C-alpha cells in the first residue's frame, strides 16, 4: 500500500506557483478574455449561460 500526502505548506507553494505561472505565461487580461469567450460559446451552443462563465461577471470564478 502506498500512501502520499500533500501538506498545507506544499499546497501553499503550489498555489503561489500557479499565481506565478499565470503572471509569466499569460498576457494581461488574457485569462479574462478566454473566460468571456467561454461564456459566449456556452450561451450559443450549450443553450444556457455557463455557471462558471456567468459567475465571472460577479468576480466569483477562477479569474476573480
Amino acid at each position, binding site marked *: *500500500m502506498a*500512501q502520499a500526502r500533500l501538506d498545507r505548506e506544499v499546497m501553499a507553494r503550489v498555489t503561489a506557483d500557479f499565481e506565478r*505561472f*499565470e503572471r509569466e505565461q499569460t498576457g494581461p487580461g488574457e*485569462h479574462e478574455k478566454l473566460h468571456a469567450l*467561454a461564456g459566449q*460559446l456556452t450561451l450559443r451552443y450549450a443553450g444556457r449561460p455557463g455557471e462558471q462563465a456567468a459567475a465571472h461577471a460577479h*468576480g*466569483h470564478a477562477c479569474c476573480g
Partner: protein
Amino acid sequence: MQRKWVVSLAIDGQDEITAEGTMNAIDQLMAEHELIVEVLDALDGYASNVERGTEVEPSDLAELVRFLREFADGCHHAKEEGILFAAMEQAGFPREMGPLAVMLAEHEQGRGYIARLRAVATVLPTGRRRIAPSSPLRPTITRRCCAVTSPRRTASCFPWPRLGSTVRSWRA
C-alpha cells in the same frame, strides 16, 4: 494577484449577505474544471448541430478549439502537469500508475483530439453552412472523444477536494 471567491446571497428580500475568501490551488482547478466542462457542453452542442444538418458557423469551431488549446491545455493542464503533479510526485504519488498516470494519459488523448479538430477548423470554408453527411470533415467534429468528455467523469471521481483537505491521502 490572489484569486478570490465571493458569494452573495439575499433570501426572501432580506439584506444581502456576502462572504469571500482566497482560492487555493485546488479551488482554482475545480473552478477552471467546471468552466472547461461548460465549454465541452458547447462543443457537444456544436457537434449535435452538425449531426442534425443545421447550419453552423465554422469560426465558432475555431474559437472552441482556441479555448481548449489556450485555456484547458495551455493554462489548466499546464499548471496541473508542471506544478501540482510535480508536487504530488515529490510527495510520493507515482507517475506511472494511479491518478497521475490516468490524468496524464487523458491529457495526451485530449491533445490529439483537439489537434484533429483544429485541423478541421482550419480547412472549413468561412461563412455559415451545413456540413454535408458525406464530408470527410464531419466524423472528426461529431466523434465524441472520451478524453475530451472525461473531465465530467474525473470531476466526480478524482479526489481533488480531498487532496487539499485534512485527509490528503491516496492508497493503492
